[in-house]
């Protein structure tokens, strides 16, 4: 693919929940290999924007494209497109009736039709990558929150996505478990994965992010390099947001 378009494009996206206008003409391009960190106060629409990117939420106007192909088009083959978009949730959402390993192999086997042996081998590699090879036979209930979230990341990676979406993935974790999940995400970023990350972890945003996007009241109010954003925000809203963090 030549770079006449970004990998993930939000093109004048409008989204309503009933009467509430939650996304207002949001445009945002995420380039191949970029780590785009979306920050902003609660209710600013950042999680909604992320959920629109794999159509867990429908948009009312505009278009969202992955690699030039529309995701938001009602005729889009969404099941096919979603295989290219990994999603990790705040509440993990592991399948409780499946072991860690089965959580990872389920979609490759059932959606891709990959044979059990191959899926298993790949799942074990992924478990090793997230430091949980020993936990393959454990059920989610037997794992800590941090371990569950790492399995959830491995589960999403098993479909070989082009982009990974992270929706406040450390917000439900005990503070001492946040680090191990961020560590896995940092490793992914270093390997060149394209990532869109909604988070409140500003240290992570600054260190790992290629670009910071600040959202407020359904709009993108500022985007910039992490260092310039955190040192010298260009907008008043950016300054306000940063001042509240201290």
């Amino acid at each position, binding site marked *: 693919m030549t770079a006449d378009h970004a990998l993930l494009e939000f093109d004048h996206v409008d989204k309503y929940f009933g009467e509430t206008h939650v996304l207002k003409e949001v445009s945002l391009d995420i380039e191949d290999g970029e780590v785009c960190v979306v920050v902003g106060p609660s209710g600013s629409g950042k999680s909604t924007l992320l959920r629109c990117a794999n159509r867990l939420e429908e948009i009312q106007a505009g278009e969202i494209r992955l690699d030039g192909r529309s995701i938001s088009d009602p005729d889009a083959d969404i*099941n096919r497109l979603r*295989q290219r978009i990994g999603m990790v949730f705040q509440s993990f959402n592991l*399948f409780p*009736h499946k072991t860690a390993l089965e959580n990872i192999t*389920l979609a490759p086997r*059932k*959606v891709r039709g990959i044979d059990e042996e191959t899926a298993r081998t790949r799942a074990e590699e992924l478990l090793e990558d997230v430091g949980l090879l020993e936990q393959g036979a454990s059920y989610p*209930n037997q794992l800590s929150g941090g371990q569950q979230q790492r399995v959830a990341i491995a589960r999403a990676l098993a479909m070989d996505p082009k982009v990974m979406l992270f929706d406040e993935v450390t917000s439900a974790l005990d503070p001492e478990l946040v680090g191990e999940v961020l560590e896995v995400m940092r490793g992914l970023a270093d390997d060149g994965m394209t990532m869109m990350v909604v988070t409140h972890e500003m240290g992570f945003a600054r260190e790992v992010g290629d670009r910071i996007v600040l959202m407020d009241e359904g709009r993108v109010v500022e985007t910039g390099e992490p260092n310039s954003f955190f040192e010298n925000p260009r907008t008043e809203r950016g300054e306000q947001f940063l001042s509240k963090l201290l």
Partner: protein
Amino acid sequence: MADSYSGAPAEANATADGFFDDQTLKYLGVGLSSLFALGVVLLVLYILSVQVDYGLVPTILPQFIRAYGLVLGIVVTGSVLSVTSGIFVGLARVSKTRITSGLSAAYVQFFRGTPLLFQIFVVYFGVPTLWPGTFPISNWGLPTAIISLTLNHAAYVGEAVRGGIGAVPDGQMEAARSLGMGYVQAMREVVIPQAWRNALAAVGNDQIILVKDTSLLTVIAIPELIQQFRDVNSATFDPWTPLVLVAIAYLSITIPMGRLVEYLEARSDWGGESQ
């Protein structure tokens, strides 16, 4: 109950009106329930030793065994049919298609909202008259039994399944869909296995009720267990001998069913209690 207060400070160890402290209450409870249990045991022993005519048992046993076999047959058929159709009633109920969920809701309202006895009469007496000409099925009693028990219990199973699906967090469907699964695939692989575990106790409960509901079939002269009681009692005026046989027959079905449900629940434990 008293145990739940064991961590409370000593001064809180009396009820508000000050009559009993926890310890007294505990002894009172143990005493009363023991007394009650003793009474029941004595009564049962009295019935079994004095009231039951063991000489009559060999004479009436064959008809009870035939009735038992018939009830088992009705129960197995009714269970398989009502659980299978109940799952579809439950799935239809959570459908996003209005007509489908509406029809399912109406079905449940009707079959849960009218007595089973009424439904048996509708099928047994009502349906044959709707047939143009002579009703072709001469022995309509057994089909009536299966049809009415299935229709009635599919409604209850449907409600249990709906509740079971409702208790599965939305995030499960979202996670499955975000991995590229279609709706049907996500339901089959992710939602229904969890919903089934959630619904198991309620479905098991309903199926035990189905066993006991076969007793109503006496009103359309199905030769089930209660029918045998009436038969023996009217011939001998002995209530307790046939009653004891009826009790043994029902309990020998319902108690193992309860065990089976416990076993199935334990089997889908998935690594222990949720956090």
